[in-house]
C-alpha cells in the first residue's frame, strides 16, 4: 500500500490528536490526586489558600483546622 499525501497528513493529525488527548486526561488525573481526602466536595482542596487579607477560605479540612487552632488562642 502506497501512502499518498492526504493519508500522510491524516495520520500525522491523528497522532497529534491522540497525543493531546493522552496528556489532557493524564493532567486531569493528576489534579484529582492532589486533593485532600477528607474534603470530598468538588472544591479545590489542595493546600493552596484562597485567603484574602481579611478572610480565610474554608474549603479543605486543613484550612478549617488551622483556623480553629488560631481561634482557640482567644479563649479564656
Amino acid at each position, binding site marked *: 500500500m502506497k501512502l499518498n499525501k492526504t493519508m500522510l497528513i491524516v495520520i500525522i493529525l*491523528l497522532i497529534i490528536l491522540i497525543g493531546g488527548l493522552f496528556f489532557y486526561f493524564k493532567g486531569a488525573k493528576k489534579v484529582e490526586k492532589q486533593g485532600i481526602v477528607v474534603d470530598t466536595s468538588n472544591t479545590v482542596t489542595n493546600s493552596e489558600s484562597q485567603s484574602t487579607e481579611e478572610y480565610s477560605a*474554608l*474549603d479543605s*479540612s486543613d484550612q*478549617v*483546622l488551622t483556623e480553629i487552632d488560631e481561634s*482557640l488562642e*482567644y479563649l479564656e
Partner: protein
Amino acid sequence: MKIKVALFLCILLLLGGIYAAGSSAGEKSDASIPNKEIRKTNEGDRMKLREACDAKTTRADRIKCRLQYMRDHKEDFVSQDKYPEVCRNLVEKEKCRSLYERSHNCYEKKGIEKNKCFKKIAGFARAKLKDENPAQQNTLSRDYVVLLLYDLQEKIEQGIENEKIDVDKGSAVVDKITEIKEAILAGKKKEEIKPMFHDLRNLIKDMKEAIDETQ
C-alpha cells in the same frame, strides 16, 4: 477509495475508544459509590432506624449509628430529637440550638463567603478576632470555633456518605468534635479544650493515613 473509508473507520474507532476511556476516568469517584448497595427501604422503615439511633444510650453509639445510616442510605440523618447532639447536655440548650439554626445557610456557601457567614453569625464586628474588642474575644471565639468544628464534621460526614472514610474511624473523629463543641459551649477553659483539640488532630491524622492505605 477503499483505503480512505477504512482509514476513516479506524479514526472513528480510536476516537470512540479515547472518549470512553476519558469518560470513565472523569467519573471514577462517582462510580466508586456502590449505588446498587443502597438499601431500598421505605420512609417508614428509615424513620424507625433513625429513632433507634436517637434512642441509643451513649453519644458515641448514637453518632456511629447515624453515620452508618448516612452511609447505607446516602442521605442526611434528620434527627427526631428536639436538640442537636451537642446541645443535649447543656444548660443553655435553646441558645445552642439557636446558634445551629442561624448558621444553617452558611454551610451551603464556600471558601471566603463561608468564613464571612460564620463570623457574621458569631457576632464579629471586624474580620479578624485580633481586631475585636478584647472583652468580647472569648465569647466570639467560642461561637466561631463551634461553627468551624461543625463545618469539619460536615466534611467528614460527607466522606463517610461517599464511602471514602471508614465509619469506625469517622465516628471516633465526629465524637471528639462533639465533645469539644460541648466543652466550648459549656464554658470550659482553654487549658481543658486545647488537649482535646490535640487529640482531635491525632484522630484526623489516623483517619487520613487509613484512607491513604486503602487508596
